[in-house]
């Protein structure tokens, strides 16, 4: 088994095919979308492949260490940051092909007009623990 992160971007991904911002959808379209995501997660739990799903607020803060005894420096949010993560799903699947298959299905979530968004999702493998047998 291999774990993969399916990463969804607010910004930074190539444009989706059905690229209408969510606030221009009808309320029903939003409900349908949310239900699709829930059903998708429930289905993956049923197949024994679901690990985690989380959504992130659109705005965050940059933080860095500022030396001994000093409070951390904070900055942002930066409106110009190119890459902005919207959320993720973590799956535990048989291999890369299955991860791509599932990401494709997730990308088909309905958006404006009830049509699939075709949004780009980033599929990233997790680094594993080292195998016990090494040679």
């Amino acid at each position: 088994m291999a774990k993969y992160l399916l990463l969804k971007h607010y910004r930074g991904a190539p444009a989706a095919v059905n690229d209408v911002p969510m606030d221009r959808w009808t309320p029903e379209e939003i409900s349908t979308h949310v239900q699709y995501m829930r059903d998708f997660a429930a289905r993956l739990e049923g197949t024994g492949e679901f690990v985690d799903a989380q959504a992130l607020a659109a705005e965050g803060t940059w933080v860095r260490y500022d030396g001994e005894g000093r409070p951390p420096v904070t900055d942002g949010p930066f409106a110009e940051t190119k890459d902005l993560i919207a959320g993720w799903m973590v799956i535990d699947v048989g291999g890369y092909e299955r991860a791509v298959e599932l990401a494709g299905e997730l990308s088909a979530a309905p958006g404006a007009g009830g049509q699939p968004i075709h949004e780009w999702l980033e599929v990233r493998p997790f680094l594993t623990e080292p195998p016990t047998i090494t040679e």
Partner: protein
Amino acid sequence: MSTQLDELLLRSLAPSVLAVLVRRGADFATAEDAVQDALVEAVRVWPAGPPRDPKGWLVTVAWRRFIDATRADAARRRREELVDEEPEPGPAPGVDDTLQLYFLCAHPSLAPSSAVALTLRAVGGLTTRQIARAYLVPEATMAQRISRAKRSVSGVRFDQPGDVATVLRVLYLVFNEGYSGDVDLAAEAIRLTRQLAAAIDHPEVAGLLALMLLHFARRAARTAPDGSLVPLAEQDRSRWDTASIAEGVEILQAALARDRLGEFQAQAAIAALHADAPTAEETDWVQIVEWYDELVRLTDSPVVRLNRAVAVGQADGPRAGLAALAELDDSLPRHAAVAAYLHDLDGDLATAARLYAEAARHAPDLAERDHLTRQAARLNARRSR
């Protein structure tokens, strides 16, 4: 029994208890749940009042749970037939039934991850929660994985002979995926392989058991206190577990003597040659290359050829290793890592450093990535001096 509950003893009884229920006509999925319930009940009540016949106790409790589970549903009539036919809980044939369970849980219709989970639960007696923690997935996900697996094999006849090779692949996976949790999966894989070796006389089962014991013996030495990987050549060999090595070598020799070589015996032979060398310098690389030749013949695996190139580099020099490597597809996983190592041995530090860094970018696990990055950093620091 002492009042201290021996969890391993308890779990070792799980497969034979399950087999008794299935032999009595219980369906596999419900019977397996019933055995889990009985194990949980045993953990609760045995410390205060240990039974004289632990297995008989488990069979009785599990059977009762099975009857309870089927009472409410449509299977009532069938259940009543079963109760009428219930045999005396006398001596149950343990060995063959356990073997059948291994076959069922490693059935070729199951995905490897499902076979692993089902084997750990039904044969290993682990709880869903323990398995979920070991594989770092939510308990609900693991529960579904197991129940789907049970449904998949529900139509398989219990007395159908299975293929030992599929069982060995599952046990190998359990051993090799070094995930953590409160269960030591490597130790659990050894326990299950030992149990299998007792149930079936097969040189490859012995070969896998030997392979596991020989690698398990090195475990304490292969990780530094900070968690980083220590390569074989740099391990403190005084920390290798000599009892585990001795047992592995003995099992392997008995298996090899039967002259039915298979890939696990050949892999174990390589591990035994490493175990046999008092220092890394004294390793018999010529013999190791010969075993890799056998492995290539047996498996025709590109990964084996890659490891063979490393051994050739040690036996005949890094140039010979690089020549062996040149015959292989450079898109193979770990190809760059092997190339880096051979160039390192050959003294071409610039190339080695570049390849170590490239290999680090493609490393599938964190410890290996860190190790390769350190190797690149070591060479770069030396070159800039």
